[in-house]
C-alpha cells in the first residue's frame, strides 16, 4: 500500500512536469505574439511593446521563460498580463463564484441518477427502462447551449423571473426572502444544465452496475432464502453495486476547476470557465497556463484519490 502510494506519487509528479512543459510549448509556439494583441491601438507604440516584452520576460529564450514562469507560480507571484493582478487571487475569486454551481450540480447529479438508474435496472426492458434510456441519450446528445436557450425561454416566459447573471441587477433594497429566491433562480438553471450530462451518464452506469450485481449468485441465494425484495435489492445488491461509485468521488475533483465555458458565458456567470475564456481571448498566458496546470493537478489528484479509495473499500484489490 505504502509502496503503491509512493510509486504513484512519483509517477504523477513526472506526469505533471511533462504536462507543464507541453502546455507551455503549445501556448508559446502557437503563431501570434501576446504583444500583438491590439496592433491597431495607437497607444501601443513599439517602445511600449518593448517594455511589455521586457517586463514579462518575453525577450528571454523559451527555457528561461519556462523556469521563470513556474518559479513565479510556485512562489505565488504570477501576475496577469492584462491587469497586473495576482493570478492566484483572481482564480480564487472566480473559483468561489463557480463553487455554488459545482456543488448544486454535483448534488443534483448524484441524488437524481441513483434512483433513476436503480429503477431502470430493476424493471429492465420495461417501459420505464426504455424511456429512461432514450432520455439519457437525448440529454447526452443535446448541445448544452441549445438546451440552455430552451430552458431560458421556458423559465422566462412561464415564471417571469430573470435568470442571466448571478443576481438581478439593482435589487439592493428587496426583502430577504426575495433576495434568496432571486439567488436560487439564478443558480438553479446553470446548475441543472451542468448536471444534465452527468445525470445521463451516471444513471446509465448505475443501471449497468446494478444489472451486473443482480445477476450474481449471492443475489439469487438471497432471493431463494425468501427475503423480501426490498432487502434483496437494497441490502444485498445495491451495497455491492455501490463499490465503483466510491471511486468516482475522486473523479469529480477536476470538475471543480473546469467550469463550463459555454454555460458560464451564456449566463454571464463570472466563474472559472468564463475567466479562462476571457484569458484566451486576451492572450493572457499566465492565466491560461495556471488554469491548465491546476486542472491537471486536480485530474491527477482525483485519479490518485480514487485509486486509494478503491483499495480501501474493496479488499479484493491489492496493488
Amino acid at each position, binding site marked *: 500500500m505504502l509502496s503503491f502510494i509512493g510509486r504513484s506519487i512519483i509517477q504523477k509528479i513526472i506526469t505533471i512536469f511533462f504536462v507543464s512543459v507541453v502546455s507551455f510549448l503549445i501556448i508559446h509556439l502557437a503563431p501570434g505574439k501576446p504583444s500583438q494583441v491590439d496592433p491597431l491601438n495607437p497607444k501601443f507604440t513599439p517602445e511600449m511593446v518593448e517594455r511589455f516584452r521586457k517586463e514579462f520576460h518575453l525577450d528571454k529564450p523559451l527555457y528561461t521563460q519556462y523556469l521563470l514562469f513556474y518559479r513565479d507560480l510556485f512562489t505565488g507571484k504570477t501576475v496577469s498580463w492584462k491587469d497586473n493582478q495576482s493570478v492566484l487571487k483572481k482564480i480564487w475569486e472566480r473559483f468561489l463564484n463557480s463553487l455554488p454551481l459545482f456543488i448544486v450540480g454535483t448534488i443534483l447529479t448524484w441524488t437524481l441518477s441513483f434512483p433513476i438508474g436503480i429503477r431502470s435496472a430493476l424493471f429492465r426492458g420495461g417501459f420505464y427502462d426504455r424511456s429512461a434510456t432514450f432520455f439519457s441519450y437525448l440529454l447526452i*446528445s443535446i*448541445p448544452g*447551449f441549445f438546451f440552455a*436557450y430552451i430552458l431560458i*425561454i421556458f423559465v422566462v416566459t412561464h415564471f417571469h423571473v430573470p435568470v442571466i447573471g448571478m443576481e438581478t441587477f439593482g435589487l439592493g433594497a428587496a426583502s430577504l426572502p426575495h433576495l434568496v429566491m432571486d439567488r436560487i433562480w439564478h443558480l438553479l438553471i446553470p446548475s441543472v444544465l451542468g448536471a444534465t450530462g452527468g445525470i445521463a451518464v451516471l444513471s446509465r452506469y448505475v443501471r449497468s452496475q446494478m444489472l451486473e450485481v443482480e445477476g450474481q449468485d449471492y443475489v439469487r441465494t438471497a432471493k431463494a432464502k425468501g427475503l423480501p425484495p426490498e432487502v434483496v435489492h437494497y441490502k444485498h445488491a445495491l451495497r455491492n453495486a455501490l463499490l465503483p461509485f466510491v471511486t468516482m468521488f475522486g473523479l469529480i475533483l477536476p470538475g471543480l476547476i473546469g467550469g463550463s465555458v459555454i454555460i458560464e458565458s451564456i449566463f454571464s456567470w463570472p466563474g472559472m470557465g468564463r475567466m479562462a475564456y476571457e484569458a*484566451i481571448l486576451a492572450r493572457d498566458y499566465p492565466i491560461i497556463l495556471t488554469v491548465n496546470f491546476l486542472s491537471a493537478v486536480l485530474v491527477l489528484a482525483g485519479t490518485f484519490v480514487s485509486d486509494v479509495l478503491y483499495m480501501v473499500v474493496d479488499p479484493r484489490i491489492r496493488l
Partner: protein
Amino acid sequence: MKTYTKNSLQNIRTEESITVPRKTRFQESWELLKKNKLAFLGLLIFVLFFFTAVAGLILTSGSKPYLDPSTIRLQEKLRPPLSNPNLKTLRPEETPKLGIYLFGTDDLGRDVFARMLQGAWVSLTVGFVAVGIAVLIGIFLGGIAGYFGQNHICLHHILITLILFTGVVLLSIGNMYLSVIFLIPGIVCILYYLLLKKRSVKKAQSIWLQMLHKKAISVDTLIMRVVDIMLCFPSFFLILTVVALLPASIYNIMIVIGLTSWMGTTRFVRAEFLSLREQDFVTAVKALGISNLRIIFRHMVPNAIAPVLVSATIGIATAILTEAGLSFLGFGVPPPYATWGNILSDGKRFIFDAPWLTFVPGFAILIVVLSFNLFGEGLRDALNPKLRERY
C-alpha cells in the same frame, strides 16, 4: 453398398448444413442491429444525414450554386419558416429556388434552409475527419504499445533521437551549419545500428557501450504515459486555446479535435492487442514466418476493430458537438461558411423574435448527434460476442 454410403454421407452433409448455418460475422451483427429498433433508427437517420450533407455540398457550392446560402435580401429579413417570398421586392436572381423559405430567413435575409444544407456538410466532414485522425493515431500507437510493448527503448535510442531532433530544430530555425553537425552523426549512428542488427554480431562490448545499451523504459510504458499526460488536459479548454491561437480555419478545427481525442482508441486497441497476441492463431501465423506488419494489419486489426468502431461512432457525435460549441463561442469555421453552430450563435440575439434561428439548427444538431449515439450503442451490443446467438 456404395449407394448407401453415399446417401448417408449426403444425409450427414444436409444435417450439418442445417445445424451450422453459414452466416458471416457481419450478417449476424446486422441481424442483431436490426432487432434493436432505436439503433436501427439511428442508422437510418445517419444515412439520411449523409445524403443530405452530400446534396448540400453539391447544391450550395460552386461559383453559381443552385441554392445560394449567402444571398443577402435585407427586405426579407427574419421571415418565419414556410413563408412565401415577397416576389415584387426581389430581383429575379434573388428569389429562393424552392419558391418558399422552408426554414425562414435570418437577420440578413439569407435562406436558412440553404445555410443548413451547407452546414450539414461542414458538420459531417468535421466529425469524420477528426475521428479519422484520432482513430489512425489510436490504432498506430495502441498497436505499437500492444504488439511491440515488451521491447525496450535503450539509452542510445533516446540519444540518437535527441541528436536528430536538435538537428531538425536547428534546420528549421535556419542554422544550416550547426544542424549538419548534429544530423550527420545521427544518421551515421542509425546506419551503424541497422548494419549491426543485420549482421547480428555478438561482440564483447566495452563498459561504455553497455551503459549506452541499458534498457531505459519499455515502449508500452512510454506510450501509456503519453496517454496519461494527454488525459490530464481539460479537453474542451485545450481545444479552445489552440483553436483561438491558430488562424481560424475549418482544417485546424478538424486536426485539433482529432489530435486531442485519440487516447480512448489507443487504450482499446492496446488492450485488444495484448489479449490477441497470446492467442493461438497469432502464434500460428508467426510460425508461418509472416512479417510483423502483415500480422498486425491482416490478422490482428480486423479482430480488434469492434470497440474502435463503437468509440469512433460515438466520437463523431462528440466531435460534431465540440465543433458546434466552438462555433457558438465564435472560434468555429470562419464566417462565409455557415455551420450549425454559428447559425445558432447568430440567431441567439433574436431568440424571442425569430426562435426558428435557434430551434432549427439546435434540433438538427440534436437529432444527428442522437442518431450517432444510438447507432454507436446499438453497434456495441451487436458486436458484443456475449449477446450473439450460439448455434
